[in-house]
């Protein structure tokens, strides 16, 4: 009995939840009995992975070189039920006004109409206006004028 053949049998056992298997043919006889390990073994293991997450994933924290998650990136604030987060659809530079001396499009506390420009993301010398998708009130502005923003960064 080759290890390969045996393994094929073992995979079958595992797949079909067999606990015992006995084969007798020309080549000889095989008997296999499995213990109760399988709850833990195969592919998608929700319980194990979840418990794993409690242990911090490997290179999250380190002496120096490897950065912690989210470091340097804008963190999304906790949202209340009636609040909506506006994120950047592209990498670029965030501007609150259409020109250096112009007034900002919006301030915190302002009410906005649907479609009203909120800010500009400059990407590759193109000025892209970010518009309000819904009417509402600006609760907080999370970026500073002239700040680089990445894809998906909360604005």
């Amino acid at each position: 009995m080759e290890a390969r053949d045996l393994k094929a049998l073992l995979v079958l056992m595992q797949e079909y939840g067999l606990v015992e298997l006995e084969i007798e043919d020309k080549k000889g006889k095989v008997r296999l009995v499995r213990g109760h390990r399988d709850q833990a073994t195969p592919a998608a293991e929700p319980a194990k992975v979840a418990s794993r997450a409690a242990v911090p994933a490997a290179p999250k924290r380190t002496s120096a070189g490897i950065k912690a998650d989210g470091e340097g990136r804008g963190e999304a604030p906790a949202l209340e039920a009636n609040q909506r987060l506006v994120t950047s659809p592209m990498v670029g530079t965030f501007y609150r006004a259409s020109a250096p001396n112009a007034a900002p499009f919006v301030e915190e506390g302002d009410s906005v109409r649907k479609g009203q420009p909120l800010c500009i993301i400059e990407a590759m010398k193109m000025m892209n206006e970010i518009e309000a998708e819904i009417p509402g009130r600006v609760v907080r502005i999370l970026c500073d004028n002239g700040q680089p923003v990445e894809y998906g960064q909360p604005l």
Partner: protein
Amino acid sequence: MFKKLLVANRGTIAIRIIRACRELGIPTIAIYSTADKDALHVKMADESVCIGPAAAEDSYLNIPAIISTVLTYGADAVHPGYGFLSENGDFAEACRRSGVNFVGPAARHIRLMGDKPRARRIMARHGVPVLPGSEGKGVVELRDAQASARKLGYPILIKAAAGGGGKGMRIVRNDTELARFFPLARAESEAAFGSRTMYLEKYLERARHVEFQILADNYRNLIHLGERDCSIQRRHQKVLEEAPCPVLTPKLRERMGKAAVRAAKVVGYSNVGTIEFLLAPDGEFYFIEMNTRIQVEHGVTEMVTGIDLVKESIRLAMGEKLRFTQRQVTYSGAAIECRVYAEDPDTHLPSPGVVTNHHQPGGLGVRVETALYDGYQVPVHYDPLVAKLIVHAENRALAVARAKAALREYVIDGIRTNIPLHLRILADADFQRGDYGTDFLRRFEPAPVPVEAPRVAGRAS
């Protein structure tokens, strides 16, 4: 020295480039897709910028997003790595137009070598041997393919003119197969590269894939760093590579090296590149194509020459002169690279998932380039290459022994990998004798098992 370099890639090569930059003292920007926010290259770079969603077209292949990142975050150099945009002439051009240095050759070299029929014609004109193939600018219609086939004689290899990575490739052995597979290959080419242009080439049985590493500066100094044997392939995908090629005589090496240097010189090439040859059992060799970027398997050349190819490529892109003459390049020992793919070793289906245990091999002559860490979730969206194990020893037999010992130490749980396949290759008597060609891996193919539905584990967003 560059002030800040953007690494336009992910995985093992992104990490390789970040390490080289750290040693050179160049700060790095990693780019990543939303699927890669926990990737090791993101954690290792000095800055990291999310440039788009998981799909490669929207992130790692998204030229405007990358150029915008370069401009917004103030990089003055871009390294494309391998795959993704590394052989995209438009990207190289976009970088240069934005005033940023592209670590690689000029856009025109990328475009020229990307057009395979044209590259073949130039090589043939300059006395670099090429395989007999279809003439002219490529073949689109079946009847033209049939006419070519009559001249060449079977077996014939159908290739996509714009292709690479095995897509659009088919071996045909008679008229029936040609009629059946030519339209299929053309459809694959159209899907993968947006081009219906194919070309036909005489197919060599039992040939070896032997390639030469090229290093060139902007001042017409150009040398080669010896060869790599990359014949261990599965469906035109390299699996294990070694340097030197176990069957090359010093005389043949010199002849092939000279041909490689000529091939790169006639087009005025600069930076790193690779000239790929097919080596027939009778000792004749034929130009296949030139790769105008760093290769996955560059590490084996680094081990036997002691030259850091990634650092050299950055230096050359800064306009430095070549630091070695052809004569100063010396070779010592033998090196083997095992590509570790996150795939089922039997079915070759990708095996994404969470790495629950991870322990790297180590010790003398053992080099690991990995994108994995304990707890890392291998995403489903990208190439399954997750690590490279490279060993170096004083001779080939010891390198084989060292590779085996290291693979036996390697622990990667939670996902399946092709490590068992590597152990079988290394234990093979023909492999140990160095007696193999590009058809070698066929013997390891499992008998095709009817698969009802390919099991693809839980896609992460």
